[in-house]
């Protein structure tokens, strides 16, 4: 009766989260108005570039599927390289979206309301990009459903449930489905807002169809909050499980440098680290191009920078722990794997990784740096680069110098592999730019819930309304 699943989330109000003394109507107008405005030349330029990259990727993927995975630079020693690097990279990027939508929701971090919609969309698009790589790596992607344990005419040969690759399939599929549902459920009230804005128009009809007849009934809102809380509670362990399972793809193998128990937390921290960097990148761009400076304020950027410092520290600790464990293990193979990372043929990549992931983010300790959005943008890009190299180094540097020196080999990506990576960036940014144009990038209903009453508005002026609303109305008959 008295339980309030979500209510306390709205209690703490200090510095306004949203600048510019917005009213609820202002929020609707600003966010939906951004969809009405003519697309800027910057947007068209970005879309053109993204679609060009997407077409390049589509051509490369068509070619490699018609020819075979032999178009990649893999060899018998380095059997995983560019594709798995990109897979882990994209999945990791997706994790920040779930962090913001689920974990920060449970932690009652209200600043998330300005960025959660875009971050969740980012998750969806990143998981799509990630999924492409294992799909192509199967060699016969049209038989992807063989990963599903379905009754088949091969005697009903079931999948091997002891294999981390099968866990991966279940984890990524679940992650995509739950993220998509979470995103759509969060979107329903905003779709209704657009529907009711200009009745009779084509857009109103489309959004009316998509908004499922949302009325704004509080009886429904009340349950909606429960559903949202449940999804957040399920999404939190889910996001941790997804990268844990991705890390077991490596940790259950006997390759030196992979076979360690630190991998799950190390991978999860790295995923959130890279994802926060990508959220920062996208938000800084969206803020400027979509004129959302009042919604994505320096305070939001500051909070995200703090998360980058935190996760950078965790990643740095993991790098140091790996070296210590290798030293302490007394296993010459393990020791060599790490010597090879720092001093071997890919040492340049290793040091790019350390510089971008551990050293450069330390600049964010300085308030002046966090307030300078150009510098934050550059740091975020560098972290993205560093985290890509982390996966590349873990995978390739470990495989190319395994147990048998006679089997040592080197790896260079082919143009096809590079084109595929470029193609996924094209896919990601094409989807993101289209999302920015057609769907409200700010969670309108959630932002309205964290608005401060404007100073000078009636409830502040009126002497008899100073108390907290909704608790004890003095007018009760």
């Amino acid at each position: 009766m008295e339980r309030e699943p979500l209510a306390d989330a709205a209690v703490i109000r200090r510095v306004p989260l949203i600048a510019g003394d917005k009213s609820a109507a202002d929020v609707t107008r600003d966010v939906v108005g951004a969809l009405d405005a003519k697309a800027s030349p910057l947007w068209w330029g970005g879309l053109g570039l993204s679609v060009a990259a997407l077409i390049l990727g589509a051509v490369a993927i068509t070619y490699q599927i018609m020819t075979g995975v032999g178009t990649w630079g893999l060899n018998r020693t380095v059997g995983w390289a560019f594709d798995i690097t990109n897979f882990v990279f994209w999945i990791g990027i997706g994790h920040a979206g779930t962090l913001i939508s689920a974990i920060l929701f449970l932690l009652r971090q209200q600043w998330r309301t300005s960025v959660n919609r875009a971050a969740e969309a980012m998750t969806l698009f990143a998981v799509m990009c990630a999924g492409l790589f294992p799909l192509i790596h199967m060699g016969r992607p049209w038989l992807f459903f063989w990963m599903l344990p379905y009754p088949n005419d091969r005697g009903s040969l079931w999948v091997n449930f002891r294999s981390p690759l099968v866990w991966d399939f279940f984890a990524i599929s679940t992650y995509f489905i739950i993220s998509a549902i979470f995103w759509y459920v969060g979107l329903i009230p905003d779709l209704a807002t657009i529907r009711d804005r200009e009745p009779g128009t084509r857009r109103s009809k489309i959004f009316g169809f998509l908004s499922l007849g949302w009325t704004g009934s509080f009886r429904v809102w009340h349950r909606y909050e429960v559903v949202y809380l449940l999804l957040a509670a399920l999404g939190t362990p889910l996001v941790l499980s997804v990268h844990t399972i991705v890390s077991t793809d490596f940790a259950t193998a006997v390759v030196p440098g992979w076979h360690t128990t630190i991998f799950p937390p190390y991978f999860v921290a790295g995923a959130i680290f890279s994802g926060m960097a990508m959220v920062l990148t996208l938000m800084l761009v969206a803020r400027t191009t979509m004129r959302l400076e009042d919604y994505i304020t320096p305070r939001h950027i500051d909070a995200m920078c703090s998360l980058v410092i935190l996760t950078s520290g965790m990643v740095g600790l993991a790098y140091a722990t790996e070296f210590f464990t290798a030293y302490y293990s007394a296993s010459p193979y393990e020791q060599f794997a790490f010597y090879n990372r720092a001093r071997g043929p890919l040492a340049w990549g290793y040091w790019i990784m350390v510089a971008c992931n551990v050293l450069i983010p330390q600049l964010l300790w300085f308030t002046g740096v966090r307030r300078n959005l150009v510098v934050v943008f550059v740091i975020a890009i560098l972290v993205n680069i560093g985290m890509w190299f982390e996966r590349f180094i873990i995978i390739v540097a470990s495989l190319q110098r395994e147990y048998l020196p006679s089997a040592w080999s080197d790896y260079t990506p082919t143009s096809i592999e590079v084109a595929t990576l470029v193609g996924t960036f094209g896919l990601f940014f094409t989807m993101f730019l289209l999302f920015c144009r057609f769907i409200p990038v700010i969670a309108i209903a959630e932002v309205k819930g964290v608005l401060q009453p404007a100073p000078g508005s009636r409830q502040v002026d009126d002497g008899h309304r100073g108390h907290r609303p909704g608790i004890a109305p003095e007018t009760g008959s």
Partner: protein
Amino acid sequence: MTGPVLVSVFDQEQDILQATAAARQAGIEIVDVFTPYAVHGMDRAMGLGSSRLPWVCFLLGLFGAVAAAWFQYWASAVDWPINVGGKPWQSWPAFIPVIFELTVLFGGVGTVLVFIAWAGLRPGRSSPMAGFRVTDDRFALVVRPLAAGPDRSSVETLLGRFHPLSIEERDLALDVKGARG
């Protein structure tokens, strides 16, 4: 539910909260309240009960877990046992990731589907409240007048204390959800 209802429109969160609480204390039947966002404290003002959806979620998640555990055991140890690296047929520790994922999948998807079905949400359904700007910046309290005449005017007087923008009688086809669900 159809029939005449009294719709009072407010433009401040505090007003609708106090008006709703006052109407409830006065024993007026609150048909529903329409708000652009989930107003903090409105559930108390309306006297809404707690939801049973957490139980739905728990049971669906439990079903997912049991189904995944049983199926993996049956497929790996009963229907066609295959020796993979000498591991036992019933490799329970290795089955945990898929059990966990299916728990989340069934719990999450199922809860949302149950919610959508309960709320009567479906593509193309229209909103009877579309004209009141309740998805933009207005808050609407919908009560059922006790009868005609003086009762109605006393309701109007009561609600009039909370700065309503308008109070009008309407015939609305409202789909009212029960206090529990």
